[in-house]
């Protein structure tokens, strides 16, 4: 019995050591920063293309936590990320004003589009006026799938509804359907119930379950989608990797970083347009 118990505990100990031993990258101490960003940049494949380029020049690994803009800002406010890389300027400015972040830099833009069923029950295809298109969708009570998750895209969408003067909350559960989930999940829902939806172009380009959906509204200046990057304030949290985080921010807005963003193609189409301010302007 005693030797059996001994053997068993030896086995357990060996198992524990095997399980807990650091295997390769990831567990081992390596030079890295954590970036809180959005599902749209992750789903578009931009990071997979961009980050190895930055790693090569800097030797700094970048760990991206991709969530909605609202949650990304919450993570950064708690000091759980070194850099915030999102797309809702008013929230970003507020983040800086409240002292959670240092300076905010423009990095790149793409645009939002309204997608919907090819049959187009609200007759909005080709409409260059997004507010008029949304008004038409509401008038027909055509199904509209909203993120409903406080993300950058959701905030944008709510802002556009405000401009139509329509109170979509009263229609929630009717034709206005809040999925409370990410862009991809919302597009899956829209695809399944033939609903209209507002999406960023990059996620749409990379989305594999388009079903009967097509792009209906694009090109309105109000559909502009600006991305910004902010270093989390190292004075608030002493563990923030200020130097390495700043190196990433600097690289994104540098000539090299901007050229890399501009060169990225998604299914042959440009997904993002670099527009950081030129140094000294």
């Amino acid at each position, binding site marked *: 019995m005693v030797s*059996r118990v001994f053997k068993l505990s030896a086995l357990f100990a060996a198992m524990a050591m095997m399980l807990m031993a650091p295997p390769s990258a*990831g*567990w081992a101490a390596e030079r890295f920063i*954590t970036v809180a960003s959005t599902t749209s940049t992750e789903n578009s494949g931009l990071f997979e293309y961009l980050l190895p380029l930055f790693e090569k020049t800097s030797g700094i690994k970048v760990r991206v936590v*991709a969530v909605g803009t609202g949650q990304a800002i919450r993570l950064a406010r*708690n000091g759980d990320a070194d850099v915030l890389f999102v797309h809702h300027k008013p929230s970003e400015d507020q983040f800086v004003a409240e002292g959670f972040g240092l300076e905010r830099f423009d990095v790149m833009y793409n645009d939002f589009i309204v997608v919907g069923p090819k049959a187009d029950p609200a007759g909005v295809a080709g409409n260059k006026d997004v507010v008029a298109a949304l008004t038409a969708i509401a008038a027909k009570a055509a199904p509209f799938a909203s993120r409903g998750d406080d993300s950058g895209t959701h905030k944008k969408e709510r802002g556009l509804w405000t401009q139509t003067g329509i109170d979509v909350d009263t229609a929630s559960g009717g034709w206005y359907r809040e999925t409370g989930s990410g862009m991809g999940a919302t597009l*899956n829902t829209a695809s399944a119930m033939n609903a209209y939806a507002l999406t960023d172009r990059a996620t749409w380009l990379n989305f*594999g379950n388009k079903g009967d959906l097509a792009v209906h509204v694009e090109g309105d200046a109000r559909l502009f989608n600006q991305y910004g990057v902010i270093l989390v304030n190292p004075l608030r949290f002493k*563990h923030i990797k200020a130097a390495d985080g700043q190196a990433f921010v600097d690289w994104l807005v540098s000539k090299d970083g901007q050229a890399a963003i501009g060169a990225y193609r998604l299914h042959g189409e440009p997904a993002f347009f670099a527009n950081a301010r030129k140094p000294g302007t």
Partner: protein
Amino acid sequence: MNEFSDAVVTAGRLIATWDRDLAEIIGLSMRVSLSAVFFAAIVGLPLGAAVAVFRFPGRGIVTAVLNAFMGLPPVVVGLAVYLLLSRAGPLGSLGILFTPAAMVVAQCVLVTPLIAALSRQTVEDLHAEYAEQFRSLGVSPLRAIPTLLWDGRYSLSTAVFAGFGRAVAEVGAVIIVGGNINHVTRVMTTTIALETSKGNLALALALGLVLLAVSLAANMAALSVQDWARKAYA
């Protein structure tokens, strides 16, 4: 619905080609969940046995709590562990948020009540059988616990397998505390969630089939070890 046939074909191809990214993801899934179950078993088995053999006030409530916590929603556990491990939280100085260690902690919290509740029932039944012998030999409840755990080891292993199943299949907790970071904290379930959100439904389902196959292999390996042990120590 050709998504299903696509998924089966894709799953076959994934297993046949076995690329490094997939191996890395499966490896991390296994390491995280096995580690979590290991620690959960160390805590859960004696805890369940203690509740089974000791008589104390509020024992019924403890049993009910253990049973109820078998149904802890993973996303709630993830959120609670996130708040604990966040830099703004009480354990923030550890700096383990968004690492596999955080995922082990979350799954451990999730699985411990399950293992404890199931082993409480097993040990209690066994204890009823042994109670008279223990009394005649003057064995204290504390001394009885190791004996009961040892004699019930084969039934108890099912509790541990159930814990492993729950750990390896959940996504809600690990996606919050791990962050689904590529090459760092991306596991099978978070990859499936990510591919679903990209609209790659067939690939997501194929990954689900691969996860099932891997779980099946792990369980079969465990069963054959058990079988071997049963014969060796018969």
